């Protein structure tokens, strides 16, 4: 059991999400930085499907109510003695995550996984649809599952911290690139974009040059997944992260390569993003 003493700005339970339910209007959700969440599970010897805590900009304070093997990954928070190096939290130990100097999301995994009740096969909180457990509140008691499988064999994972400076990621073709002017398409793949403050698990709102559309009119809503770069009439693109709508009515002009979406999920407001074909 883990007791939540403080959740910070936003901490949710996340696993690999609910794949395969888009047809009934349920998005995948899951950890925004999947690679960091998977690493956390691996370091404590969990199944890849185990649930972890996703903490946004530090601030999470939890108390171990039993001896727990724990690790944090992703954004490195001061106050975590177990960052990328799993260690035992003795019963009664308080883990108090400070604000990370770089990166946005920190994953806390405990051996056995966070064992809240799954909804549609997943313990993930989807902030857009409201499915899954509510975001953590002070006083919440989180059950920890039984550990199974072999004990972890890795002491330290040499992983670089998320950068605090500009990030460059791969831009792939999207289905409605032809809705933008040639100049707008060129700008999408060359201009520096700034992550704005109204970004969240749904997506990053990007500030930069206005992307002019070649076609106006309305596009019937169509399916999209994370990584989609949607261009609304304002001309300011949105990069969808973990909890996008299942379908959207604005043209998707490009996609960020799936692996790179994890890195985008570590961007903080004000940070610069560049998209390269």
């Amino acid at each position, binding site marked *: 059991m883990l007791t939540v003493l403080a959740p910070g700005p936003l901490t949710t339970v996340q696993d690999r999400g609910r*794949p*395969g*339910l*888009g*047809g*009934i*209007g*349920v998005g995948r959700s899951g950890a925004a930085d999947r690679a960091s969440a998977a690493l956390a599970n691996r370091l404590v010897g969990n199944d890849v499907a185990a649930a972890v805590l996703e903490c946004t900009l530090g601030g999470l304070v939890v108390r171990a109510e039993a001896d727990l093997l724990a690790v944090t990954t992703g954004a490195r928070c001061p106050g975590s003695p177990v960052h990328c190096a799993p260690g035992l939290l003795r019963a009664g130990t308080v883990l108090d995550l400070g604000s990370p100097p770089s990166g946005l999301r920190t994953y806390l995994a405990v051996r056995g996984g966070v064992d809240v009740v799954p*909804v*549609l096969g997943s313990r993930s909180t989807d902030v857009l*649809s409201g*499915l899954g457990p509510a975001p953590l509140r002070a006083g919440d008691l989180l059950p920890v599952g039984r550990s199974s499988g072999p004990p972890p064999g890795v002491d330290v994972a040499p992983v670089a911290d998320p950068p605090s400076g500009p990030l460059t990621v791969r831009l*792939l*073709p*999207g*289905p*409605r690139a032809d809705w933008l002017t040639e100049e707008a398409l060129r700008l999408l793949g060359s201009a520096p974009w700034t992550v704005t403050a109204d970004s969240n698990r749904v997506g990053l709102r990007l500030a930069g040059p206005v992307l002019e559309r070649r076609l106006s009119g309305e596009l*019937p*809503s*169509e*399916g*999209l*997944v994370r*990584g*989609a770069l949607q261009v609304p009439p304002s001309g300011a693109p949105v990069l969808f992260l973990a909890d996008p709508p*299942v*379908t959207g009515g604005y043209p*998707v002009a490009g*996609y*960020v*390569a*799936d*692996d790179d979406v994890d890195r985008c999920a570590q961007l903080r407001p004000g940070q610069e993003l560049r998209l390269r074909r």
Partner: protein
Amino acid sequence: MRVLPSGSSALLVELDDLDAVLGFTAALLDRAVPGVADVVPAARTVLVVADGDLADVRAALERLPWRPGRRGSGERVELPVHYDGADLAAVAGLLGTDADGVVAAHTSREWTVAFCGFAPGFGYCTPDAEPWDVPRLASPRTRVPAGAVGLAGGFTGVYPRESPGGWQLLGRTDVAVFDLSRDPAALLRPGVRVRFVPC
């Protein structure tokens, strides 16, 4: 049919019309194409999410035999409806009939769920007869109750939970169309045939 790129793990299949979407989706759901992790139909497109090699999935989609048309999954759902919706009279006016005429037309048609959207379990149902083109409300309601049965743009649908909404409301059903404690949670899945019965 045009297969458009959608990043590292999906393809967007663009089709001519809703009949093509229905036929293509039915064929795809029947076949269980290897490497396909999710199928998300919409009004003119089907998003195919892959968990295998994208080029293999594209080739399989291009080889898939299908024809346009309403071919249901074989599942049928009957939804009892109290026809006391706030927009019944307005819809009757738009269609040049009276409230009874709207109810008769709504209940005599068989509907097929074409796709889901807007909220988990919100199925867009298309009729087997000529669709009515009823506009959305000029200004959406801030609160539509769960179970409200509405009409908009040729479709009918049932609000799975309380939410804002712009569809013209004909009535309400007591059946939970989306229930997390039930498997499957969504009653109105693509391909399911629906009849509305007055109660």
